[in-house]
């Protein structure tokens, strides 16, 4: 009897253990990650979050930095295939020229997940792609402004990203969609600040002069936080109060904008989350445990942060990510 109980307990424990392992199919798996490089703070944050997410799930992550070169990425992916990894994550540096190497991964039955950017290749060559919706980012920012100003007349100045770049086009489009039909809100000036602080500051200086010393401006919309930080300085230099005299809304949610938010100088930012790997790992988990094909395009959340979201805490969280 005693023996039988022991056996039952042992069986139970074994079942429990195996079911735990079953629920987390990722544990002990080796996953290769071919990153573009570290050209921006966001990219660096994406790399560190990916490493964190992998560690949390017990994944062995093999990391390869491509230094902005596609041939390095292709080399890295071939290396991962040769090493027989269980899955591959790629943040593709360009959209074309992937058919061959993705085909090799497919032949080796290694699922590939694209992060952050898409590719021009047949969809059956990759398991899924995880990316943000840049139009939505602009729209969330615009919706916030519409809600905040209500029926009041509001002249907006826009600091665009680099002319012709996809995020600049999409974030402009989304914002315009959001303010459409609200005739009280008008974009009066729009210029490129090249996504940088110093150009953002210079452009905002010009706008303030051109719009009656800034008295004509009710809000500043910047396509990224860095330009917003520069613009905030220009507003301060002109003797106005950013966040009060001129509302400030931007996209990205980098740590420094939360510093500005703590000082009451920024009103809202829309997060471009650096956590692309989390949803990717979850999709892999679901794929391996239940053989479920994930959706081809997983869209990450475009979360709005305002001073009500405890900017100090968010700042502390984001500070160490390498932004």
């Amino acid at each position: 009897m005693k023996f039988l109980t022991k056996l039952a307990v042992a069986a139970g424990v074994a079942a429990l253990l195996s079911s735990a392992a079953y629920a987390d199919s990722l544990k002990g798996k080796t996953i290769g990650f071919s990153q573009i490089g570290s050209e921006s703070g966001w990219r660096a944050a994406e790399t560190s979050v990916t490493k964190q997410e992998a560690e949390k799930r017990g994944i062995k992550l093999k990391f390869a930095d491509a230094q902005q070169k596609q041939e390095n990425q292709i080399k890295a992916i071939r290396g991962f295939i040769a090493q027989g990894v269980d899955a591959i994550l790629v943040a593709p540096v360009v959209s074309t020229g992937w058919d061959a190497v993705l085909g090799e991964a497919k032949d080796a039955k290694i699922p590939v997940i694209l992060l952050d950017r898409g590719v021009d290749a047949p969809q059956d060559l990759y398991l899924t792609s995880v990316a943000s919706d840049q139009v939505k980012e602009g729209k969330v920012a615009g919706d916030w402004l519409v809600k905040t100003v209500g029926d009041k007349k509001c002249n907006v100045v826009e600091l665009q990203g680099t002319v012709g770049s996809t995020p600049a086009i999409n974030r402009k489009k989304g914002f315009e969609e959001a303010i459409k039909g609200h005739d009280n809100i008008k974009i009066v000036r729009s210029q490129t600040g090249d996504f940088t602080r110093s150009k953002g500051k210079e452009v905002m200086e010009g706008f303030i002069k051109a719009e009656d010393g800034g008295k004509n401006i009710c809000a500043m919309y910047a396509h990224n936080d860095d330009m917003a930080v520069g613009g905030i300085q220009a507003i301060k230099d002109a003797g106005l109060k950013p966040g009060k005299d001129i509302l400030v809304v931007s996209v990205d949610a980098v740590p420094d904008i939360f510093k500005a938010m703590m000082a009451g100088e920024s009103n809202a930012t829309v997060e471009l989350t650096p956590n692309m790997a989390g949803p990717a790992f979850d999709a892999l988990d679901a794929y391996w445990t239940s053989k479920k094909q994930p959706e081809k395009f997983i869209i990450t959340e475009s979360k709005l942060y305002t001073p009500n979201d405890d900017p100090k805490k968010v700042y502390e969280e984001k500070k160490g990510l390498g932004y």
Partner: protein
Amino acid sequence: MKLKRFSRLINPQSIALIVVLLVNWALFPGFFDVTWQDGRLFGSLIDVLNRGVPVAILAIGMSAVIATKGVDLSVGAVMAISGAVAATLVVDGYPAYVAVIAALAIGIVCGVWNGVLVAFLEIQPIVATLVLMVAGRGIAQLITAGSIVTFADPVLIYIGTGSFAGLPMPVVIAIVLLILSVFLVRSTAVGLFIESVGVNRAAASLAGIRSGLLLVAVYGFSGFCAAVSGLIVAGDIKGADANNAGLWLELDAILAVVIGGTSLLGGRFSIAMSVLGAIIIQAMNTGILVSGFPPEFNLVVKAGVIILIFTMQSPLATRFIEMRKTTRAVARKAS
């Protein structure tokens, strides 16, 4: 004599500047409004000067380099290095004067490196300085670990955004640097040495000029100017942005020197005219900002104006004007 002095002021560059400013004024009637605010001058004209400073200071060093028949492509990257060094030092708790001296010293070291490559290894300047243009940005990124290092040091911020006697501090720095360097090259024989090396280095050496040392000094000076510029740009945004600080500014600086009338083939040069060139470039940039043109126009407008200036300066235009003058003189004599 006085008349001759005055006529020297009428040159394609100052005409171009006046035209650009008038066009700005036509597009934006408040362009010439300058007001007094918070103890300093405030207005679009001040912006032109203030924003033109980084390129103007680069152009001071670049004029001397180009006069030696060289070119310094590394100045943008050196700006990034200098800003990165200063920012990381103050963030690490060093006093501001240490950070400033270290940043300037690094700039000079970078320049001397270029100078040694050009003068003693006799590598062509465009290639020699290309090395540091590429590597320098990498070095700056290594120093800042790829992120924007923000600081709150009042001295560094004062360099970029403070004001002295109502003028923005960067403008004051640029004016001091301009006066000192013009004094250095024109009140001593240094300017002549530079020009002679630029025209014919072998002949200059035979005439007793230590051309190698002179080249190293000139490139070192250019590095120093770039470091000053880098400090200003970093102080302006209260942070060192290794990825973007000074990006492509080497090209603007070369453009400023060429607009100023210094030939890329070396020889005669004018630092003051190069600074004027930098201000013309900035007047266009500021004009585009206040005019309300869509950003897609920026580069086309800039290119159009530059082509106009160069046409005015071209040998063909000069010959045409000379011809008109002579025919008029002949006509006067005949009558």
